[in-house]
């Protein structure tokens, strides 16, 4: 019944590590850079090295690797699907046959390719989860707002987007708690959610969804009122309590990311194995 238990993906883990203390903008940029690197790497050696690099970063961030594993659990299905699709429909016809099932032939090359693509997905999730594990939602939206500021001239409402995002993030745990509470209240009245066919299960959701929506609307109303009572009127001329500042450690982190990226990319550009 504890819904939150399986939800480590995208969850902040407070620690006092150097990575936690980085400016969120540095972390956003570094995550973006590393994501590009993941897509450029196209062999197992590179992936293994990148994996080792990430493990090192997690150690620096003081995030136990067990959490990383748990964060992968929700995407397990997607991983499997990707793997199977690539295995059967990779289009790689030639090479050494590995398995022969009637007309279907799976070559060693196709298997390697499918495994590699699944691995790439794992690396993506791991890399972005390092970011979310070490960045509080507040820092995340602050960083995003600041990064979007130059685009205000072309009409991108950075502050409003960031505000919406922080409100949404803020209410995710609340909604989970509420869902759990309403589910329990209906279960106390004999409701069952895991029984019957699809239609019955969908119908069983109604007693949860109606109260949940009602309370979400009520909350939205109350929040809007509370914000207006404090004279909130958007980002224009708004100052902030915590200003973002680049510190020397940000330069170090940025430099390290650039160096690592080059390290991963150069062999590929040179056409080395």
């Amino acid at each position, binding site marked *: 019944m*504890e819904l939150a238990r399986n939800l480590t993906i995208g969850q902040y883990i407070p620690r006092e590590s150097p990575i936690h203390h980085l400016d969120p903008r540095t972390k956003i940029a570094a995550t973006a850079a590393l994501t590009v690197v993941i897509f450029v790497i196209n062999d197992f050696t590179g992936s293994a090295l990148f994996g080792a690099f990430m493990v090192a970063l997690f150690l620096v961030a003081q995030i136990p690797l067990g959490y990383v594993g748990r964060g992968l659990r929700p995407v397990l299905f997607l991983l499997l699907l990707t793997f199977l699709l690539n295995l059967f429909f990779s289009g790689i016809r030639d090479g050494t046959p590995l398995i022969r099932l009637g007309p279907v032939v799976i070559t060693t090359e196709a298997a390697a390719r499918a495994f590699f693509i699944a691995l790439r997905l794992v690396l993506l999730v791991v890399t972005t989860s390092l970011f979310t594990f070490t960045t509080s939602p507040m820092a995340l939206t602050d960083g995003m707002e600041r990064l979007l500021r130059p685009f205000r001239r072309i009409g991108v409402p950075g502050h409003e987007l960031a505000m919406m995002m922080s409100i949404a993030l803020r209410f995710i745990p609340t909604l989970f708690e509420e869902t759990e509470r309403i589910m329990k*209240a*209906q279960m*106390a009245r004999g409701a069952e959610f895991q029984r019957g066919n699809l239609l019955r299960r969908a119908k069983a959701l109604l007693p949860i969804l109606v109260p949940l929506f009602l309370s979400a609307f009520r909350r939205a109303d109350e929040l809007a009122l509370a914000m207006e009572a404090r004279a909130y009127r958007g980002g224009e001329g708004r100052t902030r309590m915590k200003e973002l500042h680049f510190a020397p450690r940000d330069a170090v982190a940025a430099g390290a990311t650039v160096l690592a990226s080059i390290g991963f990319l150069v062999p590929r550009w040179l056409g080395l194995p």
Partner: protein
Amino acid sequence: MIETRDLHHVYLEGTPMSAVALRGVSLTIRDGERVGLIGPTGSGKSTLVQTFNALIRPTRGTVFVDGVDIFAPKADRRRIRQQVALLFQYPEQQLFEETVARDVSFGPRNLGLPEEEVASRVDDALHAVGLDPGTFGSRSPFTLSGGEMRRVALAGVLAMAPRVLILDEPTAGLDPQGKAEFLRLIHHLHARGNLTVILITHSMDEVAQVAERVIVLNEGLVAMDGPTREVFARADDLERLHLGIPQTAQVLHRLRARGLPVRTDLLTLEEARDEILRVLGTA
């Protein structure tokens, strides 16, 4: 009868957010008792009662309802939830149907009862909470007042025909008159049938009015357990747990401190009045 044995519960065990709620609760609640469950915020009251009808599976220990281990693999959870009903805090937030009658029928329908039986249960339950099925049955629950909505929610659990009724802060957010009415209702329900009532509350006055036995939880353990009078006689111990005693008892304690030799173990307004008059009369 509800019996717990060495109940332990940890929320989100094995994560950085883990929180210990219960650390070994063993108690027995007999049929027909009126129990007040009190304790500071976070003492584990809500967690404890949610193990009574298997909504929370304790990390260690188990619960027996009428001698049946409700966490045994083959236990019939639906039957247990029919027998041990739980009204959550702000229960009006669980209403979802188009009409009051349909909402109240949710429970009995889940039990798979025939339609006539469902209809008569709905009528009975609405009558029991003081709402006329004829006037209220066809209305939308969302057009009712807060107090009325709460009664509809209570009718929704009563329609399960439970033997144990657990109420988690049932009067929170009601106005004084609504509170008094709701408490009278609980009394009435208890008097009507052989119903066991477990009341969680922060109001010592409500405990004094409703409960014959008080269980005090503190940091996941039973700190006190006994007849209401005896527990409230230990005013100092309650004070240490940041709990108080009923207002009538407070008045008597102060009078005694000022030199009036009154008894201090009285709970209701009438008892206190008679005692003060008695002492003044003899003085």
